[in-house]
């Protein structure tokens, strides 16, 4: 996806919620990764960074 205002992860998420409003309520439970490393809402992005939002990992109780 191309984003116009991609200062931080928060900016990307806000833009994403414009396109997919259904993801907005998930915000508080999401984990964030930038370029395959855990990041946070304030992480500053640069061109071509890969940002991922995903739910808590779920190995579960074995």
């Amino acid at each position, binding site marked *: 996806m191309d984003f116009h205002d991609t200062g931080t992860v928060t900016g990307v998420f806000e833009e994403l919620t414009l396109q997919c409003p259904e993801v907005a309520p998930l915000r508080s*439970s999401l*984990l*964030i*990764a930038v370029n*395959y*490393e*855990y*990041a*946070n*809402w*304030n992480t500053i992005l640069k061109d071509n960074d890969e940002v*991922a939002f*995903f*739910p*808590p*990992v*779920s*190995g*579960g109780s*074995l």
Partner: protein
Amino acid sequence: MISLTNEPINHAEIVNSVECPEAGAIATFDGVVRNNARGKIVTHLFYEAYDGMALKEMESIAESILKEKSILRLAIVHRIGKLEIGESSILIAVSSGHRAEAFQACRTTIDRVKERVPIWKKEYYVDGEFWVESYSGSSVKLD
């Protein structure tokens, strides 16, 4: 050996990969698919990974365990895709000079994998399905 695989886990190959002449103990942890969860009968599971990051996290966990603990070799193999009851979803093997270190490193490794590696599982029941969304005790902190 650190890997993700779509194929059944080859236990012997993974255990062989941590063998070395200095080892006096090899501990393994074998995570298998259970036939029940949340009071329901489970028919099978589906594991999905954020592949590149999952592998990177597994490598980073292995690296830190090798630094922190007195162990010799460590292997982590996680299976993804559809798994039947009784099949292995993860195998961890650790070799060390003596048993205490191998047991402890094996335990620490599985705990960290469950906390940090982006792999999710979906449970299928006779009458439905459920993405397991959270692992209580997760230590990943974003802020």
